């Protein structure tokens, strides 16, 4: 992942995108205050917005737990796994994921959990501020899915059909085409454990673990998947699409 460095993406986005984002109230401060001192190579980055910024689509308590407890646990457990195996310290997270079939199970679970959540936070923004797919991304979506509404329906179906914990993804395949996939638990399309036909560069992902939506939506995952589009940061997804295209 040469250019996709999610730790830097929020800053990049703030520099490039909608003024409304730069004016988001009490954004990173809430997260920064609670962020732990790193005890290993990986750290829980602050959120690029406040816990309540995504409401009513995603409520503040869900965000607080999802970032401050679930994501934090993945970071802490990944650092533990790396500390227990010095050979891992030489690898970037992306290098670990690319060979995760050869690494201990905690690296797959927690390395995936860290990568996926770090990515997920950058894909969202306050309702109404995420813009639209860029003309080039929209053309690719129309080419590969028929239309933007058709893409949304297919993506929601992928999220609904993922049985148990997991993620729905929009990826750029090595041949440049877009594809919708899903993975169980904290696996992702960068991992070598994923079937080759479902590997690629993620440019959008939605978390369908129940912890992502249960407090607000209960068992109604389909409703969460539909509402979620209101907070999708299409400006960011478009940047990720361009980056993936330029690396081909």
């Amino acid at each position: 992942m040469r250019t996709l460095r999610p730790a830097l993406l929020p800053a990049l986005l703030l520099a490039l995108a909608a003024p409304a984002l730069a004016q988001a109230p009490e954004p990173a401060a809430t997260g920064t205050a609670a962020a732990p001192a790193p005890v290993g190579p990986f750290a829980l980055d602050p959120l690029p917005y406040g816990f309540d910024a995504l409401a009513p689509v995603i409520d503040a308590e869900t965000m607080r737990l999802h970032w401050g407890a679930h994501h934090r646990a993945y970071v802490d457990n990944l650092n533990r796994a790396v500390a227990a195996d010095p050979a891992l310290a030489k690898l970037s997270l992306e290098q670990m994921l690319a060979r995760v079939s050869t690494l201990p199970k905690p690296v797959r679970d927690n390395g995936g959990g860290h990568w996926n959540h770090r990515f997920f936070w950058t894909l969202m923004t306050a309702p109404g501020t995420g813009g639209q797919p860029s003309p080039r991304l929209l053309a690719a979506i129309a080419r590969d899915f028929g239309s933007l509404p058709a893409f949304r329906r297919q993506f929601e179906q992928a999220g609904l059909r993922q049985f148990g914990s997991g993620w729905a993804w929009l990826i750029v395949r090595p041949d440049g085409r877009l594809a919708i996939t899903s993975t169980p638990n904290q696996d992702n399309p960068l991992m070598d454990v994923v079937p080759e036909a479902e590997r690629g560069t993620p440019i959008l992902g939605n978390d369908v673990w129940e912890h992502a939506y249960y407090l607000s939506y209960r068992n109604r995952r389909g409703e969460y998947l539909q509402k979620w589009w209101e907070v999708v940061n299409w400006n960011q997804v478009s940047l990720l699409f361009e980056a993936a295209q330029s690396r081909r």
Partner: protein
Amino acid sequence: MTEETLPGPDGTFALPPLAWALDALAPAIDAETMSLHWGAHHRAYVDKLNAALAARPSLQGKSLEALLARAGTLHADVRTNAGQHWNHAFFWESMAPPGRGGAPDGALLAAIERDFGSPGGLVEAFDAAGAAHFGSGWAWLVRAGNGRLVVGTTPDEQSPLMEGAALSGTPLLVNDLWEHAYYLGYRNRRADYLAAWWQVVNWKAVGARFAAAQAA
């Protein structure tokens, strides 16, 4: 549930009634969680199982256990919903209101002491397995083929009755590790849920299952 679970005269499986009220397991499990878990999640598995079977005449009329035994040959729609229907029905029967479930005794207690040192040792091993399980799934106490008691977990819809499952044996006790089982009451604190859950374990049911497995 050592007997077979058969579809009704119309060929469909039914959502089994609970043996206690939705609020009877509080405070270990709150009434809203029970209402959703039984009335929405379990119901959806039953409905989806029936829909999946309606499209597959060759599977109609078979018991749930017969379906699980050939899980490897089943389409995902049948396998996942059959597994979840069986697991949830077994889960409800594994619980009783606080103070009503009794305690391990007799042959079951002797087997627990033999294989875990004490009931406390079983609880510790069971909770550790449940806490370590990653993602959706189930924590089990089973009687293995060699007669020993074993603790382990299965992912998603798997049950020890399925061919090729991560754990095999005769199920004696199960706890649900899906987040919907505990998120409203415990949020991300799965370990707290696992610890509190023992207040509602139906040891009488576990003892009866153990006796049936020994006799089989």
